[in-house]
């Protein structure tokens, strides 16, 4: 009995001393930290994807707390919803951010862009890009090894085995920008999601002259400039034989889409055109247009579940 008592006393006394010591040291060397940082970190998604430009969610939280206004600070994953929460914690005004989405600007499907060689090395876009032009003749197009798919942390990118191109799942895409960095050919761009997720995009990055582009890929932009003439809002510029639609100026009238002779311009998530108007989009490429047509005028039956060929 005595032994037990002694043991209890000794251990108890040691524990108590250690506790007091630890408490004193903890107080003495306490790091003063704004408690709001923890709160803000709580509401952030916690994916640590780096899409905001900071090392992780906590780093963004620190920056938010330190900053005077939330301008320029944005969690692309959480979007304006999360930023509103952050703003309410910090008592600041939230800056409305347009939701963005990743867009793969290549439509060189297997049918439109014939394979000219076979790459027998490692299946990595980076490596293939460093070796040569790629398996097709287009030096600007998608290489199809899926570096972007591997880079996506949100499972929003998948390769479509039929087209050989990556497709973005709009519901899952958080526009963190990881895929943009992963693509050695700079094919992926973050664009405004647009009203009702509708947007018009040139799905091509080929800067070669029209004839060379055409030879490599039937769906490529040949830089003819028809779309530029058609556009009433000066949203389209043609530079280096390549058209580009400025999403800030585009009013989604779809005139350019109809004017494009190769079908390089795609209207995404629009209802199908009325059959009464025989406007015939992409008349020049009846065959290659096929795989992309079902995704282009996004069927209202399946609003967004199916990844649109973005």
């Amino acid at each position, binding site marked *: 009995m005595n032994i037990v008592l002694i043991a209890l006393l000794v251990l108890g006394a040691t524990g108590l001393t250690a506790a007091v010591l630890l408490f004193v040291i903890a107080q003495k060397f306490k790091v003063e930290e704004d408690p709001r940082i923890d709160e803000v970190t709580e509401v952030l998604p916690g994916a640590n994807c780096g899409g905001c430009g900071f090392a992780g969610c906590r780093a963004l939280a620190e920056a938010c707390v330190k900053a005077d206004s939330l301008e320029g600070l944005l969690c692309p994953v959480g979007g304006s919803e999360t930023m509103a929460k952050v703003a309410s914690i910090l008592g600041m005004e939230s800056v409305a951010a347009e939701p963005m989405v990743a867009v793969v600007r290549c439509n060189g499907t297997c049918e439109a862009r014939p394979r000219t060689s076979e790459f027998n090395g*490692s299946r990595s876009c980076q*490596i293939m890009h460093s070796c040569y032009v790629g398996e097709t003749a287009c030096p600007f197009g998608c290489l199809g090894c899926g570096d972007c798919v591997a880079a996506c942390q949100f499972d929003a990118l998948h390769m479509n085995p039929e087209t050989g191109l990556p497709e973005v799942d709009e519901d899952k895409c958080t526009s963190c920008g990881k895929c943009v960095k992963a693509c050695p050919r700079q094919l992926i761009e973050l664009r405004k999601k647009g009203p009702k997720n509708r947007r018009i995009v040139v799905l091509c990055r080929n800067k*070669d002259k029209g004839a060379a582009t055409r030879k490599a890929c039937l769906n490529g932009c040949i830089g003819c400039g028809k779309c530029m003439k058609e556009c009433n809002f000066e949203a389209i510029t043609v530079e280096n034989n390549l058209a580009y639609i400025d999403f800030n100026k585009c009013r989604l009238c779809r005139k350019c889409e109809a004017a494009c002779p190769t079908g390089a311009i795609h209207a995404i998530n629009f209802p199908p055109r009325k059959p009464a108007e025989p406007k015939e989009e992409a008349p020049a490429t009846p065959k290659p247009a096929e795989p992309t047509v079902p995704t282009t005028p996004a069927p209202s039956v399946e609003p967004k579940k199916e990844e649109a060929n973005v």
Partner: protein
Amino acid sequence: MSTFRIGGVHPQDNKQYSAHQTIVDCPLPQKAIIPLVQHIGAPAQPVVEKGDKVRVGQLIAKAGGFVSANIHSPFSGTISKIDTTVDGWGARVPAIFIDVEGDLWLDEIDKSDNLVREGILEPKEIIDRIAAAGIVGLGGACFPTHVKLMPPPGKKAKVLIVNGVECEPYLTCDHQLMLEKGEEIIIGIQLLMRALNIQRAIIGIEKNKPDAIAHMQKLASRVLGMSVMPLNLKYPQGGEKQLIDACIGRQVPSGALPIEVGAVVDNVATVYAVYEAVLKRKPLISRVMTITGKDVAKPGNYRVRFGTPLTDVVALAGGVPENTGKIIGGGPMMGRAMNSLDMPANKRVSGLLFMPEDESRRIEPENCIRCAKCVGACPMGLEPYLLARQAELQQWDGMEAHNIMDCIECGCCTFTCPSHRPLLDYVRMGKAKVGGIIRARSAK
């Protein structure tokens, strides 16, 4: 017999197909395309215009910077356009298109085969003539030769090492050149020795070319300070730093140039071009290429003027074999598989190798078993397994810390890997990335 000390592998040399085939001149084409990027450094700037008449040897594009090289017209005819062309790897390069008419040379060029002995020339004049002739290293890297001959202040060259190793399997163009143009090469070496103001030159030749060793030894013995060094077989002995180690037993420090140990290395083909440029005033407009492969009808060594379509050269060698699975520009170790033969011959392509379908497939890679064979094989003393892994994980700073920039991309690691891992693929990609990062940093 000596060789370099670190790493190396022993691939089968397969030189029997084209060895001892006399150099054959390739006929002139109808139309020629002269790419303006045939060297390391800035692209050359065209000095002719559409519609101009040019003669053989006339300057058509000027060096675009210090590290760059002049380009001369290999043909006589009319410039049809100045545009871009696609090379055998799909890259777009600026080029001059010529419609070939006849074969009219510039008057000052001595195009005969007569041997010209050395005249008395100042070192500066020799270097100027080399620079004007647009000579680049024909061993593969295509570094402008005149830049090598001007050591930075404070550095002094002590020995000229002439690279007659040709360690790359299949290729035989340098071997044949030594047999046929030995005397010219010796004179070229004397010119370079004078240009560098040095008294010692070593010609390194691997012992699988005994006839070339005997021939060059006979010729070199007449010249004071010149010797032939027979070397044991080992790839990549033709690498600059490996050859220096093999010949004079000195190792170039990491990141430094050969001049650091007092050596200048030039390929025999380059030396021959120097002879022609300096004493016969003939600029660099052609080179010897090896067209080879197991099933090529007439494998051999062909003298090709730059701009000749490769398809013409291949036709001369009997056309593309039916069972071809892969066409490699260069040798099997350092060369790159091409995706099209629709490109002109240029200073860079030392050979074409046709691999049969069954030999051209890669073996499916398996996991790294940590055997460290690649570490033992790396001639630069790097750790390829680690660098490849870092490249895969995009740890660029880690790669830089492990001296990725010393990699010479010889392919020994991939060759030796028992798991068939594509180590060089990753290392090369990482090297390009890290190189870009370093350049961006130093530009700041």
